C-alpha cells in the first residue's frame, strides 16, 4: 500500500492506527536521525537508535566486513564507526557529500553508487523502527535534504529511498532549513514580520536560510524564504580534515612519518582522533591528542585558540557565506539589524566559534538562539511535515496543533538550458534563483533551424543548474539530458517548440515538458507534447 492509500485510510478512520508509523528522516553526512509521529502526544519523537543510553543519532557509517567463506557482513551505524580501525578500507563515511555524483565505491566486490550506500543507512533506520514494533507498518515518510543540494543529489536521495524499498512510502523530500523552521515554530512564538535566520551547520553542508513570517494569525503561519546561501560542501567534516592534516604535520615533525607511510588502521585512528578533538574542543579549552601508534608514542596539546587559528580560513569563509546570503537576498540586501533572531541548528553549530562569529556579525548576543535539540530538529521537522501531509495536523477532532503552516520556498539556484550559439556555449536561465516554487514554472519558445533534415526532427536539451550567481557555463551542474526525437519534418525555421521547466513544490525537483507549437497557420501543431523527468544517469529520449 502506498502512502496515499494510507492517508485515505487515516482520513476514513479518523485516526492513526497504533501500528502505523509516519516517519521523518534526516539523512545526514555525519549522523542520521529518524523520528516518528507520536499521535498520542501529537508531536514527533526521535527514535533512539542506540537503544537507550547512547546518543539518539545513528552515525552515517556503512561498513563491509569481508568473510573468508560467505558473502561478508554489512554493518551500519555506531558499531561501524567504532570499528573503523579494524576495517579501515571497507568503512564508508560522509557518503552524503557524494550524492548526485557518479563516483562509485568498491565494497565487497561491488561498485556501489552513493545512493546505494545511503540506501543501507535508510534501511537500517527503518528496520530499527520496525524492530521496536514487529507489527509496525510504515505509512509514509519524509526525507530531508540540504537546501543547497542540486537536483542530481536530490534525485539520488529519492533513488536511495527506492533502493531501500521505500519508494511508495516516500511522501516527498523536504529542505532541511524548512524542517528546522517547522520544528522550531511549534515550540516558539514567532511573531508577524519576524525575520529568522536559520543557520543549519551539519557534518557536510551549510545551509543559511532567512525566513520571513509573512503572515501570522491564531490559526496560520506563513514562512517565506527571502534569502538563502551556504554551500553543499562546507561542514564539520572540513574541520575534521583540517585537524587531520595538522595531525599528519605533527607526526611528520615528531617521527618523520609521511601520510603515505601510515598504515590504514592507524590512518583510521587519526580520523577518529581528529573528530574527537573537534568535538571535545566544543566543551573544553584544550585537548591532548594521543598519538599512540607512533614510535615513540607522544601526546600533543591542542588548545581551542590554536584550533580556531587552524580553522581561520574556514571560519572566515563561513562568515563570508553568511554575509553573502544577506547581501544577495532575493529582494535586495538585508542588514543584520533587520534580522530578529538567528537559530543555530546542526551538530557543527555547537562549536563555540560559531556563536562568537554571529555575535561579531550581529553585534547583539541576544539574537543568537540555539535550538533545544540541534542534532534532532531536522528529523523532527520532517516528521511534522509528514504528519501534515498525511492529514494529521489539520484534523480538528484530533486536538492537534492549531496552526496551519505554509511555506513559500524559493529555488536556491538558477535553472536553465545550455544554449549553443556557433561554437560558443552559454547558460540560458529559465527559472531564476529566488523564484518561489509555486511560481517556478517557466516556458520558452524556441524556433528550430538547421541545415540537416534531422536538425528539424531531433533536438538535444541539456538542463543545467547554476549554483552560484557568478558561475560560468563550465561550472554549471548537469541536471539531465533530454533527447527529443520524432518531431515533424518541416523546413528550417518553421518549427516553434515550447520548452517548459518547473520545480516541484515538494522537494524542489526539476521536471519539464516539450510541446510542438507548429508555425503560425502555415504548420499546425503536431500534437507532440511530452513530459520529462531529467536524470544525470541516462539521457531521456522522448519519441513523438
Amino acid at each position, binding site marked *: 500500500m502506498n502512502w496515499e492509500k494510507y492517508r485515505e485510510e487515516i482520513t476514513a478512520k479518523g485516526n492513526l492506527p497504533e501500528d502505523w508509523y509516519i516517519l521523518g528522516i534526516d539523512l545526514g553526512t555525519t549522523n542520521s536521525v529518524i523520528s516518528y509521529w507520536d499521535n498520542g502526544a501529537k508531536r514527533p519523537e526521535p527514535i533512539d537508535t542506540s537503544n*537507550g543510553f547512547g546518543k539518539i543519532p545513528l552515525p552515517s557509517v556503512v561498513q563491509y566486513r569481508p568473510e573468508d567463506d560467505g558473502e561478508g557482513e554489512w554493518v551500519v551505524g555506531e*558499531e561501524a564507526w567504532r*570499528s573503523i580501525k579494524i576495517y579501515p578500507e571497507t568503512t564508508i563515511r560522509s557518503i552524503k557529500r557524494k550524492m548526485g555524483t557518479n563516483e562509485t565505491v568498491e565494497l565487497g566486490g561491488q561498485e556501489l553508487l552513493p545512493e546505494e550506500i545511503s540506501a543501507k543507512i535508510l534501511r537500517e533506520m527503518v528496520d530499527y523502527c520496525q524492530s521496536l514494533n514487529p507489527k509496525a507498518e510504515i505509512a509514509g515518510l519524509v526525507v530531508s535534504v540540504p537546501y543547497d543540494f542540486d537536483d542530481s543529489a536530490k534525485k539520488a536521495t529519492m533513488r536511495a529511498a527506492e533502493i531501500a524499498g521505500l519508494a511508495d512510502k516516500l511522501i516527498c523530500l523536504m529542505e532541511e532549513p524548512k524542517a528546522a523552521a517547522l520544528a522550531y515554530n511549534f515550540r516558539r*512564538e514567532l511573531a508577524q514580520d519576524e525575520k529568522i535566520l536559520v543557520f543549519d551547520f551539519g557534518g557536510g553542508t551549510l545551509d543559511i536560510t532567512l525566513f520571513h513570517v509573512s503572515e501570522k494569525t491564531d490559526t496560520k503561519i506563513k514562512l517565506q524564504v527571502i534569502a538563502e546561501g551556504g554551500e553543499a560542501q562546507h561542514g564539520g567534516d572540513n574541520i575534521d580534515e583540517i585537524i587531520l592534516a595538522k595531525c599528519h604535520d605533527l607526526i611528520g615533525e615528531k617521527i618523520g612519518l609521511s601520510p603515505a607511510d601510515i598504515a590504514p*588502521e592507524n590512518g583510521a*585512528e587519526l580520523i577518529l582522533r581528529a573528530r574527537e578533538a573537534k568535538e571535545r574542543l566544543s566543551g573544553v579549552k584544550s585537548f591532548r591528542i594521543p598519538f599512540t601508534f607512533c614510535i615513540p608514542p607522544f601526546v600533543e596539546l591542542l588548545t581551542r585558540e590554536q584550533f580556531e587559528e587552524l580553522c581561520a580560513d574556514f571560519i572566515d569563509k563561513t562568515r563570508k557565506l553568511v554575509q553573502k546570503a544577506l547581501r544577495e537576498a532575493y529582494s535586495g540586501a538585508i542588514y543584520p539589524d533587520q534580522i530578529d533572531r538567528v537559530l543555530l541548528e546542526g551538530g557543527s553549530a555547537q562549536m563555540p566559534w560559531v556563536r562568537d562569529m554571529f555575535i561579531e556579525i550581529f553585534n547583539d548576543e541576544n539574537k543568537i*538562539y540555539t535550538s*533545544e*535539540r540541534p542534532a*534532532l530538529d531536522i528529523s523532527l521537522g520532517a516528521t511534522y511535515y509528514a504528519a501534515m501531509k498525511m492529514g494529521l495536523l489539520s484534523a480538528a477532532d484530533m486536538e492537534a496543533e492549531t496552526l496551519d503552516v505554509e511555506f513559500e520556498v524559493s529555488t536556491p539556484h538558477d535553472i536553465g538550458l545550455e544554449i549553443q550559439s556557433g561554437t560558443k556555449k552559454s547558460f540560458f536561465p529559465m527559472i531564476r534563483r529566488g523564484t518561489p516554487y509555486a511560481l517556478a514554472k517557466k516556458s520558452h519558445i524556441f524556433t528550430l533551424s538547421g541545415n540537416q533534415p534531422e536538425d528539424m526532427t531531433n533536438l538535444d536539451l541539456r538542463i543545467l543548474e547554476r549554483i552560484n550567481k557568478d558561475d560560468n557555463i563550465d561550472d554549471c551542474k548537469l541536471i539531465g539530458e533530454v533527447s527529443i526525437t520524432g518531431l515533424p519534418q518541416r523546413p528550417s525555421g518553421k518549427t516553434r517548440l515550447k520548452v517548459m521547466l518547473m520545480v516541484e513544490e515538494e522537494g524542489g525537483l526539476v521536471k519539464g515538458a516539450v510541446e510542438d507549437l507548429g508555425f503560425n497557420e502555415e504548420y499546425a501543431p503536431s500534437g507532440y507534447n511530452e513530459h520529462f523527468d531529467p536524470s544525470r544517469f541516462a539521457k531521456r529520449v522522448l519519441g513523438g
Partner: protein
Amino acid sequence: MSWKKYREHFKLHRMDEDHFVLGLDFGNATSAIAYFDVIRENAEILDISGGYGKPAAPTALQYIAASKEWIFGEYAILNANGQDSLLTGFAENLGGGAYLDIGDGNRSVVDIAAIYIEELIANCRSINPKAVVSGIVAVVPDFVASEAKTALSAAVAKAGYENLLIDLVEERQAVFAFCHHNKIAANKLMWLDFGDRGLRGGLYEIKDDYNTIECLAADFNEELGSAFIDREIYNLLAGFYCRTQKTQLDELSKTEQEQILTFAYGHKDVLLNNDGKDTRIYYNFVYPPFSEVVSASRIAGMAWAWENGLEDFVNRLLGNHFTDDITVICTGGGFEMPWAKKKIAQIFDTKQLYLQKNPKGILAQGATLYAAQKLELLRSPKFEIADGHKTQVDIGISITQGGKQRFYAIIERGSWLWQKPKTTYIIPTGENAEIELLTRDETGRISPLGIAKFKSMPKRPQGTTRIALDLEPTDNDRYTVKIKDLGFGEIYPATGLVERFDMRIV
C-alpha cells in the same frame, strides 16, 4: 526580582517564552533540568547533551588547575586524564560540611555544587539568550537529612538564584505533580526509582485527584542501584586491559584507571543494549589496539541479580494489594536501560505501566510543574501526603555545646522507616555511662523515650567509656536501640558488651 514578584507579574501579564520556570534534579550520578513550556503548558526537558538526545548529564566536574578552567558533565568524564581532578558523586556529600580537593586547594561541596548548578541553569540562556529565570524548584531525595537540604538551598543561592528558589520538594512530590498534570489516572500509584544509589519505591493511594495521598508502603534497597552495573562494567573492561597489557588491576596508574573509566562510560550503552548478542569492543586508546568480545551471557549475568531483586522488591511493596488496580511509574536513569524496561514490563501489564523514554527526566519535569503550580501558572491540587511509614518525631540525645544543653537528632522526624541511621558514637559524661534517648515533636517539645545502659559494666572513671549507638525504627512509634561498649583506647579496652532495648513513643 524574586519568584514571588514574578508570581504577581504573571497575574497581570501573560508569561512569555523569555521567562523560564525551572525544575532541577541535581542527582548524585546524573542531573537534569526542565523548563515550563508556556506554549504547550507542559514541562520540557532541556537537552544538555548538545542536542544529541541525552537530557541527563553526568553530575561531574573537572577542574584544570593550569588554565583555571571548569569542565562540566560528559565533557568532564571524557576528559578524565589522571592529571586534573575529576569530581563525581559529590551530591551525596551535601550537608556533611565536607571539602573536596580540586587540585588547586580545597573547596566546599556547597561551592562545587553551586558551580555545577550555575552551569546547568545557564543552558536555558543558550536556547534563549533573553532567558530570565523566574522560579526554580529543586528536587531532593526524601531520605536526605535537613542539613543536605539546607546545603542544596545554599548551593542554589551561591549559583545566583537565592530569591528564585521557590522550594525544595521531595522526589515523590515531583512525581505526583507530573502524574497529576499528565493525567496519569491512578487509584493506587506505585513509584519505582532506579537510581545509582539504590532502588526505591512506594505504593500510594491517590484520593480526590491528588489532593490527598496516602503512603501504603515504602522501601529501599541500596544493593539494587545502577552504580553496581557501572562497577561491574569497569571491572570487566579493566580486566581485559590488564590481561593484554600484562598488568594487575591494583597496579593500574591513575591515568590508566581514568582512561578505562572513560572507556567504560562510552561503552556501557553498547554493552547493555546489544539485544542479547555478543558485543565486540575496540580498545582504540591503547597501542597496539585490540578488540575483545563480551558475551551476552556475561552481560545477562550482571543484570540477573537486579532482575531478581526487583521482583522481591515489588512484592514487598505490594504486600496484600492487588496489582490490577495499580499504575506504575518508573523514574531514574537506570530505567533507561532496555533490560530494566523489559523486566518491569514482565512484572506489570504494559497498560498499567508508565515508562517514558527518558525516565530520568520525570523528576525535573515534575519539579517544573510544581514550580508552575506555585507560580499559579497551573492549577494545583493540595498533594497532602499521609505517611504511615515515616517517623513522627525526632529521636536523639541531649548534648552540651558551648555550655548549653541542646537536642541532637539521630533520626529526623519524617525519615523513612527503612532508613537506618549511621552508628552514633557517644562518650557519656555521667557517672553511670548511660544514654538517655529523647523525642522532639513538631512543636519542639522534648520528652523522654528511654534510657539505654549496660546491665553490668566494669568501673571506669567518668568520661572514659565510648559507646556505639544504633537506632532502628521497627514501626512508626517503636525503635530498637542497640548499644555496644567500645572501651576507651588501650587503657580501658572494649568489653564487647552489647545491649538491646525496645523503646516505644508514648
